[in-house]
């Protein structure tokens, strides 16, 4: 079934929860209100015409800075500029968080993408781990790396980082700590670059007398 037809079925079911359907560059995507995401997913899984028996992927997104073309908004991953100055963001992040759900039906062989968007202050989406088991680990990963809470998740612990880690690295305003658990990270200190850039060798200026005639 075409994505638009699936969206119309879905909009009929969840009513105001369906916020719009976008086609353009990339995959067609249906925007859904966070409150109705569980209803939407349950419907898409159980309905005969949709029959989405598998969730391929769940991706958390930090939309901060995306509308302004995004360039130069992310904090550098190294934490300092080429000149060895520690890099900081003066601008406070205020973008929304998003979660994208990519679904697939093995029987009907069609795909569908749902997306929800929540504000940075809320940062919480109802869990769909009761609909597909695989969402359990994907949501834990999104919580770990982006700090999006999944309300009602049975076991919302960090997945890839240690429990004692502070912060969520995939946020656009994340600053890497200079030490963790009394270990200096990679021997790099924020205040000082241990590998300062090598200055280009000075080009010797030729003596005035040897200068070839111009023209």
């Amino acid at each position, binding site marked *: 079934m075409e994505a638009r037809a699936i969206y119309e079925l879905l909009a009929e079911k969840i009513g105001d929860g369906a916020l719009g359907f976008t086609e353009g560059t*990339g995959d067609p995507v249906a925007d859904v209100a966070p409150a109705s995401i569980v209803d939407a997913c349950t419907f898409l899984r159980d309905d005969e015409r949709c029959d989405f028996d598998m969730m391929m992927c769940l991706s958390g997104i930090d939309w901060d800075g995306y509308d302004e073309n995004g360039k130069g908004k992310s904090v550098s991953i190294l934490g300092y500029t080429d000149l060895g100055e520690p890099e900081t963001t003066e601008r406070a992040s205020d973008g929304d968080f998003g979660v994208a759900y990519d679904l697939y039906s093995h029987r009907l062989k069609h795909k569908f993408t749902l997306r929800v968007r929540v504000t940075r202050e809320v940062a919480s989406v109802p869990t769909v781990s009761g609909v597909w088991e695989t969402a359990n680990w994907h949501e834990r990963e999104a919580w770990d790396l982006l700090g999006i809470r999944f309300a009602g998740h049975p076991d919302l612990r*960090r997945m890839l980082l240690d429990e004692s880690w502070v912060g969520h690295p995939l946020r656009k305003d994340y600053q890497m700590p200079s030490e963790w658990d009394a270990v200096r990270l990679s021997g790099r200190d924020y205040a000082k670059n241990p590998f300062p850039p090598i200055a280009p060798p000075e080009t010797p200026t030729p003596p005035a007398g040897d200068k070839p005639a111009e023209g």
Partner: protein
Amino acid sequence: MATEDVKATGWADQDHVPEIKSELLELNMGPQHPATHGVLRLLLETDGEIVYKVTPVMGYLHRCAEKIAEGVNYKQWVVYTDRFDYLAPMCCNHAYVTALEKLMGQEVPERGEHLRVVAAELSRIASHLVSLATFGLDMGAFTPLLYMFREREEILNLLERIAGGRMLYNYMVPGGVRYDVPDDKWIKDVLSFVDMMETKKVPEYNTLLSYNKIFIERTANVCVISPEDAFTFGCTGPVLRGSGVSFDCRRDDPYGAYPKFDFEIPVGQGQMGAVGDCWDRYFVRMLEIEQSCRLIRQALETLPDGPYQAIELKKPVKAPMGAVYSRTESAKGELGHYLIGDGGQTAFRNKVRSPSFCNLQVVTKVGVGQMVSDLVALVGSLDIVLGEIDR
């Protein structure tokens, strides 16, 4: 019951057997354990030999490659995809460039697509050989490992001649491949290798391992994964096909040059026991090696002339604003990239959906109620690679 009570009662008194209190024992399997195939820690709750709960703990290899993707440009990040599944790096390259080209709307020359298929399928064979070999090793069969690593070495030599590296290739670039075929001899060598695999080596492995009585006893009817479990846990690749589901991204969600070629999707038949047991998952991989050989032969025999790159190597690439989810069939299963472009040279967000990550979650259900030694068989038959899980 306290020790004194047991002494007082006496074991000889058969009429009055004391009730023995038992409690669950927490057992750490890993992170440094040969049967976990990397630095994976399985936290088991066991009662004797029976496992009551499995909690995988991971992240020991975490590098946050997705954050790095937001800091380097699209072409530079191909290097990092090699490091995900280091046993089949070509498949990982292929997955990433396919996603990027889908977002860019970039066409790839025919010759480039054919070379990608050859490289990815060679890598798939190499990965399956390691998987089968280490699975045999887990089950106590040491000799097949030596035989299979011998053929893997041949593949590494062939890939070294076309890509320059032996393990991490960085071979595919957006719009094509990095290098053309070195010479006609390379094509001849690959074809003769493929013929040798099909006619001699796979039957040899079958004699050595697949139909070995001890091996069948250890793997048949062990840890059966039903198709419903496989769907809801997001299992893909040989794990899903071992459960009898005929699904393969190469056929059902085609990409690259795969629609042009003729190949079959082997599925688990339950020859030695139930459909979806460890032996089925093992044997699907063995059959896939033969299909990969067919694909390589077709791709090389119909190798078209012409360019193999659409974009100059030094030219940076830009992707428009938009989000795509693109998936390919890696050696372990469905390797997907959720890629958001922002109009610049760097990805805004790049989420990697790795097959091992999703396949591993099934142990939390299927591993329950099994013996500890069968859990080793289960983890071995899932064929996980930790570089891909931890990313």
